[in-house]
């Protein structure tokens, strides 16, 4: 540590000045920045009354890219150079994006290290670089509003974001020149905005119905810590679906065919959205729409009809709600508070249905579009040190277990899932072969027993292990997950201190569905996994035994064994080799016992011989000292 001098009372930089910090909700459709000003968390506008910054970046042939509202129209005019929904690509590999790419007009190009880039008139850009443009715009906005450079920011991410996606978000922030104090899960941010962290311990549900996605998260707050118990959702369900059912009703009522031209359909969607927004407060909404044939259609949508129309859409959110309760292994009556997030939760009918489902009145006081950014701002304010004495420390958990590959393609879990972060765990491993000087550390994520059934995160090699007999080297592998959920792995050979490590970088992403799938798989395959692990362990053990015997035979088999003895060992060895790769662990076990028995005498003679060799030529008094 650095050396210190004695300061005057209170002079030790406690919080002499207010430090500028901001919370950023980096959304798929819209982004927001908020900050605590005079003890109030407020979202920061663009100076013209706008608060939401559309997460849209338009690249121009010359000049810097343009971010936000004014460019949204260009999605239609200039689709190839106007990038939206970039969050969906964060931390994803080329393979993952290929699946998503069909829904987007962009031209993806493969780049080094598998990171995809989007081709525009201004050049090729990675999703990280596109996100950085959005963050830069928010940074400028915040610095103008706060009158100076930001000390740090808290950026929110979906609870199901994996290490690769989180790292990509951090990389984007770094590129934008922002210091990330912490990445915060979006549902946790919403809970903080409502001060649930100041309240009693309990289990809360965060219902987030955005424009195009739906997420439901169950958080448990205990001992000052929020833990994500489970998440579920639908990545293709949101306010847009509500607009669509109203638009369909409009087409039907106005007698316009669905084959009408694009411009007309967009017009209808626009009216549908207006109606939805108006019917949040009013009981009816009047339309006046020009039909393709030039005639004017006028009509009226009553709130009752509107609610009947959208109810099926909202009902679709309740299935994930049921699922998440089941996954969290709790009853709906265990839920203490429900927090509403996302613009679509303004609709009274949504509130009523969610309230009825969870048997409680949901929190709706904070603007549901801003609640996540506000929570992030409150957290940033604390982390930057503006609230001395406030010891709130937010912790999250890792969604999937982390471990390394051991012999036989098996996984040794170092950190089990649901461990609260930050966390550090270390375990010792050893070499498998005599004279082995390097070891590959393969970091995997998942719940299954076999490496091949889990997700590979990273792979590196520890070199410079001094040659020793198998099992003599001690290699300590340390896993450290920081408060942002980023994993660093290091391996260290304890006798020499040689060390190497890695921070897990994006290799490819993982969706919410895949995490769920991986978890479910581990349950359905639990008994298979146990038996395959047992088999692999015997296989590895057999290989090791064969190795040892072969080395020993080559060394002094000739000298110590008679022809018959040698034949017996060779037979037992061959018998083990014959079953070694088979599926029958009992056969391997039996063959190993036989080999053990056949070589017992040989082992003893070897021992005696080595003692004899060691002692021969020395005087007794050499050993007595």
């Amino acid at each position: 540590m650095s050396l210190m001098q004695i300061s005057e009372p209170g002079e030790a930089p406690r919080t002499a000045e207010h430090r500028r910090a901001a919370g950023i909700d980096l959304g798929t459709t819209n982004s927001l920045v908020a900050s605590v000003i005079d003890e109030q968390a407020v979202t920061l506008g663009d100076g013209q009354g706008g608060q939401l910054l559309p997460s849209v970046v338009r690249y121009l042939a010359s000049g810097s890219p343009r971010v936000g509202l004014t460019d949204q129209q260009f999605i239609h005019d200039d689709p190839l150079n106007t990038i939206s929904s970039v969050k969906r690509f964060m931390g994803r590999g080329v393979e993952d994006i290929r699946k998503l790419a069909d829904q987007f007009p962009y031209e993806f190009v493969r780049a080094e290290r598998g990171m995809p880039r989007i081709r525009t008139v201004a050049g090729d850009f990675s999703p990280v670089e596109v996100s950085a443009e959005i963050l830069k715009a928010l940074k400028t906005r915040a610095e103008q509003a706060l009158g100076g450079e930001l000390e740090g920011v808290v950026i929110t991410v979906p609870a199901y974001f994996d290490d690769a996606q989180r790292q990509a978000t951090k990389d984007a922030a770094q590129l934008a020149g922002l210091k990330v104090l912490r990445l915060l899960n979006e549902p946790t941010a919403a809970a903080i905005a409502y001060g649930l962290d100041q309240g009693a311990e309990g289990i809360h549900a965060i219902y987030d119905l955005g424009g195009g996605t739906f997420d439901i998260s169950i958080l448990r707050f205990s001992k000052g810590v929020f833990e994500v118990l489970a998440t579920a959702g639908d990545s293709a369900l949101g306010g847009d679906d509500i607009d669509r059912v109203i638009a369909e009703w409009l087409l039907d009522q106005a007698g316009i065919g669905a084959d009408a031209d694009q411009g007309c359909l967009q017009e209808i969607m626009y009216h549908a959205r207006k109606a939805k927004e108006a019917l949040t407060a009013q009981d009816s909404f009047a339309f006046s729409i020009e039909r393709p044939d030039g005639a004017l259609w006028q009509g009226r949508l009553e709130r009752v009809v509107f609610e009947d129309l959208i109810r099926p859409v909202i009902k679709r959110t309740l299935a994930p709600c049921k699922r998440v309760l089941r996954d969290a292994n709790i009853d709906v009556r265990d839920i203490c508070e429900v927090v509403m997030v996302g613009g679509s939760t303004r609709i009274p009918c949504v509130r009523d249905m969610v309230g009825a489902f969870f048997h409680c009145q949901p929190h709706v006081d904070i603007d549901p579009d801003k609640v996540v950014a506000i929570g992030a701002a409150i957290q940033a304010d604390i982390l930057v040190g503006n609230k001395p004495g406030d010891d709130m420390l937010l912790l999250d958990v890792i969604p999937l277990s982390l471990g390394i590959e051991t012999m036989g393609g098996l996984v040794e879990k170092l950190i089990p899932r649901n461990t609260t972060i930050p966390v550090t765990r270390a375990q010792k491993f050893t070499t498998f072969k005599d004279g082995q000087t390097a070891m590959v550390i393969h970091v995997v994520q998942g719940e299954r027993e076999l490496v091949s059934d889990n997700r590979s995160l990273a792979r590196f090699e520890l070199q410079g292990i001094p040659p020793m007999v198998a099992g003599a080297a001690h290699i300590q592998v340390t896993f450290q997950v920081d408060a942002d959920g980023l994993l660093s792995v290091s391996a260290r050979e304890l006798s020499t201190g040689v060390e190497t490590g890695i921070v897990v970088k994006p290799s490819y992403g993982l969706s919410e569905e895949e995490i769920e799938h991986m978890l479910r798989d581990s349950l359905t395959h639990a008994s298979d996994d146990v038996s395959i692990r047992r088999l692999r362990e015997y296989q590895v053990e057999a290989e090791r035994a064969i190795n040892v015997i072969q080395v020993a035979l080559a060394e002094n088999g000739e000298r110590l064994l008679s022809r018959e003895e040698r034949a017996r060992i060779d037979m037992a060895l061959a018998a083990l080799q014959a079953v070694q790769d088979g599926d029958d662990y009992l056969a391997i076990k039996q063959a190993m016992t036989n080999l053990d028995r056949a070589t017992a005498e040989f082992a003893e003679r070897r021992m005696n011989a080595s003692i004899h060799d060691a002692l021969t030529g020395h005087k007794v008094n050499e050993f007595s000292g």
Partner: protein
Amino acid sequence: MGITLTEAAAEHVRGFLKKRGRGGGIRLGVKTSGCSGLAYVLEVFDEPEPEDVVFEDRDVKVVVDPKSLIYLDGTELDFTREGLNEGFKFNNPNVKDACGCGESFNV
């Protein structure tokens, strides 16, 4: 366990207080900061706060607020020279790891 001082540290504190002309002793504490969690506070105090825990070692009064004491209990304050710098050093048995810049630590 409490807080102790090495003779070198005590000597420097006494010298510091004498030069300053007033002051009851030193305050040790922790605050959240730096890149690894917590950072130390070392300052002079005139009057202890009511909730402070007061220690005395080698004729130096040391006060610590109860919350910081959780992180500091057992700490020995040393005064040492490292290269061209000299200053106080916290030998804190609670520290699990410290960050690269040396400003902050974790327990």
